[in-house]
């Protein structure tokens, strides 16, 4: 894998390889010193054109745990605010010779453009409403740890599918791993032709949710009311909010965050026993380590490093000082 731009570009084998690698890195997180020298001397640029807490911090920490040098650029206070084009910004950052660029953009296809304009490996950390592949991979990882396999599992994705890059990536990833996916939400927030586009079922009601093994809830933004997608947040919540009464003990509950408590998800369901939300965040770190490892080492040690420094690509801890 040269870049991670979209789940649609991957094959099941790619996902499985990243899952295995993430499993290896999970062990690193349980050590006292949570750091491996794998990407020592490599430079990774995190370029975030949208506000983000968990994705940007997760990628930054993942890079640091792999001993890479990390530069994080946010749109506010940068040359981006001064009107610099994406192409010019990439050329400027390219002068540092980064091995990887992690980009979050409000626009679909931004990561593809960066891949075209730069020599670096590119990770799409969310491009507009298009895809958010690292989220989908961490969600698959989270579920595999719980369920062992997604083969034949029924997954419902509930909420504002129209505006959700998470929904698009996750439908594709879950299906690739063998799950059956239903998207559910108000008719105004389900894209026309989504069945044909993504290969999922559509439901406008929560009836049937009891058959789901996993309920994946999407964030509902309050702007949608002003844009007349829904008459009111109250009515949305009345029809689509997931609370603990809707869930049976065997059903798993997920959400990409940040949660609007009391809108798409009730507080007690979020904090309840069904919820995997905290596990998702933990998974995010190790899966993003695995993604960076996959892209920067081709999933295996580079020849020049194998001979010189056998330790470099081996995910073993830096030894504690004696």
């Amino acid at each position, binding site marked *: 894998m040269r870049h991670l731009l979209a789940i*649609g570009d991957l094959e099941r084998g790619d996902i499985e390889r990243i899952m295995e690698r993430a499993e290896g890195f999970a062990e690193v997180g349980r050590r006292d010193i949570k750091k491996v020298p794998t990407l020592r001397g490599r430079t990774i640029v995190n370029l975030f054109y949208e506000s983000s807490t968990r994705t940007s911090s997760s990628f930054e920490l993942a890079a640091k745990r792999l001993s890479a040098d990390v530069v994080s650029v946010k749109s506010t206070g940068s040359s981006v605010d001064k009107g610099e*084009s*994406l*192409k010019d910004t990439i050329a400027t950052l390219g002068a540092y010779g980064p091995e990887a660029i992690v980009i979050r*953009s*409000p*626009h*679909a*296809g*931004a990561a*593809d*453009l960066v891949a075209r304009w730069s020599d670096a490996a590119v990770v799409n950390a969310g*491009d*507009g*409403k*298009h*895809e958010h592949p690292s989220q989908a991979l961490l969600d698959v990882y989270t579920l595999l740890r719980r369920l062992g396999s997604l083969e034949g599992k029924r997954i419902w994705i509930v909420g504002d599918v129209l*505006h*959700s*890059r998470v929904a*698009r990536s996750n439908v594709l990833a879950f299906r690739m791993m063998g799950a059956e996916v239903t998207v559910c939400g108000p008719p105004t927030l389900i*894209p*026309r*032709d*989504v069945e*044909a*586009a*993504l290969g999922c079922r559509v439901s406008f009601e929560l009836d049937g949710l009891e058959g789901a093994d996993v309920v994946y809830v999407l964030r509902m933004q309050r*702007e949608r009311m*002003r*844009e*007349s997608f829904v008459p009111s947040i109250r009515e949305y919540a009345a029809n689509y909010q997931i609370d603990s009464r809707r869930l049976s003990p065997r059903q798993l509950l997920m959400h990409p965050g940040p949660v609007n408590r009391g809108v798409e998800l009730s507080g007690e369901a979020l904090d309840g026993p069904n919820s995997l939300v905290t596990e998702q965040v933990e998974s995010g770190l190790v899966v993003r380590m695995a993604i960076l490892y996959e892209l920067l080492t081709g999933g295996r040690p580079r020849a020049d490093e194998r001979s010189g420094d056998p330790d470099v690509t081996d995910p073993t801890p830096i030894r504690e000082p004696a």
Partner: protein
Amino acid sequence: MSPTRSISSLDWRGAGGAGGKLVLRRAFVLDPRAGIEGTYDVVIAGGEIAALADPGSADGPGEVIEAEGKQVFPAFFDPHVHLRVPGDEDEEDVETGTRAAAAGGYCGVLAMANTTPPVDTAADILALRERASDEASVPAGFLGTVTRGLEGGELTEMADLRDAGAVGFSDDGLPIANSRLMRRALQYQHLVGANIALHEEDHDLSRPAGAHAPHLGGVMHEGVVSAALGLAGVPSVAESTMIARDAALAAYEDARIHVQHLSARESVDAVAAAKEAGVRITCEATPHHLVLTDEEVRSLDSRFKMNPPLRSEDDRQALIEALRSGVIDCVATDHAPHAAEEKEVPFEEAAMGVTGLETAFAVLHSELVLPGVLDLGVLVERMSAGAAPFEFEQPSLSPGSEASVVLFDPDAEWEAGADGWESRSDNSCFAGRRLRGRVLMTVVAGQVVYRQRSFAMGVA
């Protein structure tokens, strides 16, 4: 309707000239409107088609071109181009835009008024006409806007614009959203006479987040591909419902309208129904809508972003069938040059529009005529039929007609854009495509305005 006039009476550098004698020997001559089809020596003299002589019988003095295996058609007419003057001369100007037209086989173009600032006064029209008479390789006409400043609020001084030489009116790039204003413009047409060209788009449907977030406007056709990409869609009905409204208003006011760049099956149905009911309505389709679909957008390549957007295969088939049947009157390119920095950005941010003059006929020849989808004669007719809605005489190959012809090599293979472009911009959605058939020479009113480079060297 006003009486027609010749295309060459528009402003251009060659106005008043006639050119020397020119003979195109043994060419296959095709002009379906005039009922001409056969191999002739085309003799051009005094700016007119002097004769269609028996093959091999005509000779000098003057230039003689051996054109066996080549084709001669009436030159094309494009009722919809953007020359970007005034205001965006870094993208195109009258000189480069009309050179691109000449290279595409066109003997005339009509330029839209959505410039910066818009063409909305008589003085603007007069200034553009002066530029055209100094710079234009082919006759160029200029439309004025329907509404002042393209703001959709008040009518321009349409009679004054018409007196200054505006050949029609259009707010192209934007719809006339206000129904009352649209009706007034149609009423006023009874005084002014000139046709009104309409960009049909209901912004309430094409901008899904509404006025709350106009920047979230649709950027591609709403359908399977937009659902997969997460891009805001422009539904087909955003176009067809406005066509239906304006056809009804035109019928009620006994006015006439020209609908620009049809893109959807629903729009074809709306125009067909209006024509059936006797409404005075004409319409056009672009080469890109006739050849490409929204599947191209999967690449997120901004060269495939235009307004209206590329639609589904079903829509494309409907456009082709309508072009064949005559529901769509003519081909227009909507040649829309853009600077590189307006296109080298993410798809949603990119400017809408593609260039098209230099590739139009070759693309349609390669993609529709050669595979047997569209008859060559039908295409040739539709390529110049856009003159009629704006009261220009359609080019003809009948002896005695003004000699505006295109010499075409149906077998030449070339790669679009490989030799660069005459246009100042290179945002062609066909760049890099292998094409079969190439314009070798364009003649306007007897004057040679374009010779394809390798052909010119071969002749010399």
